[in-house]
């Protein structure tokens, strides 16, 4: 202690102190800052197995080297997140041609093959990786902030409660009820099909987690009125009012005017 006290006024003391505090701050930041989306580096076996899965299931449309064909985009540089999203929601491998690939929420390749083909496509070029569990944990998001962001960025297509809506020529923004937090994150990151990209510079990873928290929260929220009629707004509400309400009124009027037997 006395040695330390003696060197207190040494010319190098300030430099040492600054270096020390920088190191401490840096370490704290490295520990506390949200991690970048990282996946464990894939082994070459995984990639080789993934290539076989790719050739069997995807190459018909996307080309033998994933270079893309007419109507099927190149997969070089789309990243692991895009492949994981398309395959785990059952959109790919595509079952039939149509305005857009519908989500079946049934992974046709199985988790092992999905992981392998994901590593293969990720090995073709750098792209967004699959988010880790912490990045998509709805419990850690701020629902109120998420609602604000959702209303500005997502609501116009996915409806005010995330129930989806129509686009042009048979395309549509899907209902988010069945989308898992990881899928929501991957969709924002990669912009699948008609959806625009909401990269980390547009919506930060924390804000993405806020949006996920809100989408999950609003999905679990009970309807105070008793029936939410699908939460799709005036279409279903108007239908119920006109069909049920009007038929009931007409029934009453007919009964009022009829003579008793």
């Amino acid at each position, binding site marked *: 202690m006395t040695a330390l006290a003696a060197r207190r006024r040494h010319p190098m003391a300030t430099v040492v102190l600054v270096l020390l505090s920088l190191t401490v701050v840096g370490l704290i930041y490295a520990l506390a800052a949200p991690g970048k989306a990282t996946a464990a580096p894939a082994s070459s076996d995984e990639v080789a197995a993934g290539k076989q899965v790719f050739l069997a299931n995807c190459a018909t449309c996307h080309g033998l080297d994933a270079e893309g064909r007419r109507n099927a985009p190149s997969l070089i540089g789309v990243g692991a997140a895009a492949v994981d999203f398309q395959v785990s929601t059952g959109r790919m491998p595509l079952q039939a041609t149509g305005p857009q690939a519908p989500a079946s929420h049934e992974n046709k390749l199985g988790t092992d093959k999905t992981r392998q083909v994901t590593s293969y496509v990720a090995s073709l070029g750098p792209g967004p990786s699959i988010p880790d569990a912490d990045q998509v944990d709805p419990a850690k998001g701020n629902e109120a902030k998420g609602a604000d962001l959702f209303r500005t960025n997502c609501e116009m*297509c996915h409806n005010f409660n995330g129930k989806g809506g129509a686009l042009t020529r048979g*395309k549509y923004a899907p209902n988010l009820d069945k989308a898992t937090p990881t899928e929501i994150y991957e969709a924002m990151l990669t912009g699948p099909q008609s959806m625009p990209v909401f990269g980390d510079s547009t919506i930060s990873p924390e804000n993405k987690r806020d949006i996920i928290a809100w989408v999950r929260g609003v999905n679990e929220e009970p309807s105070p009125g008793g029936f939410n009629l699908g939460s799709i707004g005036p279409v279903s509400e108007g239908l119920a009012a006109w069909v049920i309400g009007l038929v009931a009124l007409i029934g009453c009027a007919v009964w009022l005017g009829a003579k008793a*037997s």
Partner: protein
Amino acid sequence: MSDGTGTDEMSTSDHPTQQVATVEHDGDAAERFENPGLPEHRSRMADVDPKAARRAERQVAALFGLSVVGTIGTMVAYFAVKFEGISGSNAYLQRVQLSNILLGSGLFLALFCIGIGAVHWAKTLMPDEERIELRHPMRSSDEDRAAAVEILQEGAAESGLGRRPLLRNSLITALALVPLPAVALLRDTGPMPGRALETAPWKAGDKLVRDAGGGPIKAADVQIGTVIHVMPDGLQETGAKLEERAKAAVLVIRLNPDDLGDAAKAGAYDGIVAYSKICTHLGCPVALYEQQTHHLLCPCHQSTFDVTKNCEVVFGPAKRPLPQLAITVDDEGYLVAKNGFKEPIGPSYWERG
């Protein structure tokens, strides 16, 4: 009143067909159709069968009883469904749902059953008979009409309007001037729009700032396929004046520069374009961007704009393309407006057509 009276009233035109034929009817329906008269009176079950009457009585009483049940149920639901000590908003909303359903069904039973009970009573048990009231002419008698005209003329003569032109003219002047204050008062009920319809709060050098998220946008960070909803710097806070925010809404999209047509390229920066988000049809926010077709769809009336062709209308009721906001970057690489909008944003108004 009985069936007899009814048929007596109608008997004049009821049977003698030859008589009808002799009467002059210029193309009247009565020439071809006989007046069928009133249908025969049909007695109800409750009129002829005392058992049926008692049954109807019991039904009405049961409906009124059901109403009592509904009333009691409403009271019980109101006091029994408690909101204290619930943790979690979802559990609270569930309780609200239960309360609403019970109160609604209870009140429905209470009121609706009184109504249908009363109608059922009237239809089955109250006297059932046909009555006829003849229609009488509406015109007053000639004496009454002449008396009314006389009163009016007498009043006009007594007022002296014809004899005293000074009074008449000054009254007309006073009446003509009375509405004038209303014109001034109505004009001042709100601010005049002025040039508010022609201008939008964007000027050269305004930084493009994310709406909702906040913060300026570095051009280099914007990926292809990205859509960002922006406001001019200073209007991004939700507390800013709403009319200004409504006019300032702009959509920033980055496309592959090769996809952009020449017209769109004029105001673009490296494939990044900015367009007013306000539909030129009726002013809805046009924000449904389809990344693959580069179409912008308005959710209200399906007007569709092609971003690659400077937001030309490709479908729907909109008549003008969305105005482009010319953009560039400042010294630090952040997106800024090159100049304000060159034309009024949003839907048509009288002076613009």
